């Protein structure tokens, strides 16, 4: 347990459409005893849009945040949004890895009287921060209301798992699954945990995105999940807001609530759904808290294969 203060980069999404993520992040911080101090006058990270069409200005855009954070004495920056995390992390990394790029970015920064030395600010995703700095044991200890009986699909999406698997595997990350187990919930065997949610494709080629959203929702439902849990505002938006459109296109009727991992931690810490920003979602998630049981469900007996399946002659009984 620690009384720590973290420099914090919320990103645009948490201020607008994913306010529930911000609310639940602040709520669990209060209970766990850490403080997030929003960095001064941060600007948008450019999402995927800026990098994809205007490389050097995009690096400069992101580097302004890093330089200002470094100037304020920050050694690290905690970021809840996966896209912001990627852009900040990638800019820091590539400025160091490719000195010619770093030089050009710093030349641009100089126009705003700034300079950034790559490696100064350690960019961290909120999930990594909570898991490494507090640890599963602490979280388990603090879980006043363990999430017994709740089946959750851990959805990591793309940009924290890839391209740089900083704290987990790129293909089969398990950090969030372990978190659910520690909190008393049951992680479901959800295969598409790092499959893309479609990103900005909902705006550009909607059917491309809806097909991807459909696959994820179907796979989560097939895995028996009561809810899908995300670590990114873009994933939450696509899977929640566009779930109805995907249902219409594929003639399905899934109603899979899509939560933030901070809301799940908050429920286990004994916070009320209201304190965690529930109610902003399109697919109703109000039933989730009621599914939590008071005692752990009985463990399923491990299934054995039938005798016929053994590669041995069948012995007479």
């Amino acid at each position, binding site marked *: 347990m620690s009384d720590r203060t973290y420099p914090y980069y919320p990103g645009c999404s948490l201020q607008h459409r994913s306010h529930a993520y911000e609310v639940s992040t602040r709520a669990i911080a209060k209970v766990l005893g850490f403080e997030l101090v929003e960095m001064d006058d941060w600007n948008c990270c*450019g999402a995927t849009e800026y990098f994809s069409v205007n490389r050097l200005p995009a690096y400069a855009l992101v580097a*302004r945040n890093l330089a200002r954070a470094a100037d304020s004495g920050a050694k690290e920056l905690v970021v809840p949004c996966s896209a912001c995390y990627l852009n900040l992390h990638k800019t820091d990394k590539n400025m160091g890895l490719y000195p010619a790029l770093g030089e050009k970015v710093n030349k641009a920064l100089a126009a705003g009287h700034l300079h950034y030395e790559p490696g100064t600010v350690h960019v961290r995703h909120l999930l990594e921060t909570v898991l490494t700095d507090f640890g599963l044991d602490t979280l388990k200890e603090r879980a006043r209301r363990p999430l017994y009986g709740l089946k959750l699909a851990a959805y990591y999406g793309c940009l924290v798992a890839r391209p740089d698997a900083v704290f987990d595997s790129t293909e089969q990350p398990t950090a969030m699954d372990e978190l659910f187990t520690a909190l008393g919930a049951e992680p479901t065997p959800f295969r598409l945990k790092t499959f893309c949610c479609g990103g900005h494709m909902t705006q550009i080629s909607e059917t491309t995105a809806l097909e991807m959203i459909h696959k994820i929702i179907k796979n989560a439902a097939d895995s028996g999940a009561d809810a899908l849990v995300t670590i990114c505002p873009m994933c939450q938006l696509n899977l929640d807001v566009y779930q109805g459109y995907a249902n219409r296109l594929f003639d399905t009727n899934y109603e899979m609530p899509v939560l933030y991992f901070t809301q799940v931690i908050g429920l286990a810490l004994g916070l009320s759904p209201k304190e965690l920003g529930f109610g902003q979602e399109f697919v109703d998630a109000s039933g989730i808290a009621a599914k939590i049981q008071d005692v752990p469900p009985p463990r399923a007996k491990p299934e054995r294969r039938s005798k016929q399946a053994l590669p041995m002659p069948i012995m007479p009984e």
Partner: protein
Amino acid sequence: MKAAKRSTFYERVVEATPGGKLLGQCLQCGSCGGSCPSGADMDHTPRALFEMINAGLEDEVLSSNTPWYCVSCYACTTRCPQQIPITDIMYTLKEMAIQSGRYEHPGAAKFSETFIGFVEQRGRSFEAGLATRYHLFHHPQQVVKLGMMGVNMLRRNRLPLRPKSIREIDQLQSILAEAKAIAAKERRI
């Protein structure tokens, strides 16, 4: 002084991409296309596109829809056995396609440009404005559906109608102007 030889298309793609040199190591294995969640909608899989870059088919490559269907998920990048920064190469191709006025999917470029416009003006993204401006100009037939979604977002308090701005927007704009000037100078070389 020797007259500078104009570099080939392949060289320009490599030059413009951080880590782009690895493109020369492509094995043509197809892991990229096989990993791509939106590959089915692409004119060419990344593997095919790389061979086309190799062959100098600049027109065909820059008018392919492939980079515009890239969802930036980095699945290809992490699975590439040669560690080619495939997603970043797609970004380079998008930028080149815009610069030379050749792109298959004008909607995608316009979406990015509209988004960038708000960021450059205010330092923050502004979704209500982005969705309205982009769709009104480029997908007017979608306006009713979009309006419905907007109303539903508003009802859940997920769509502020007033954009936010950063305090030192002048600083940001000077930085971006300088970065653009550097990039423009490079393109002339």
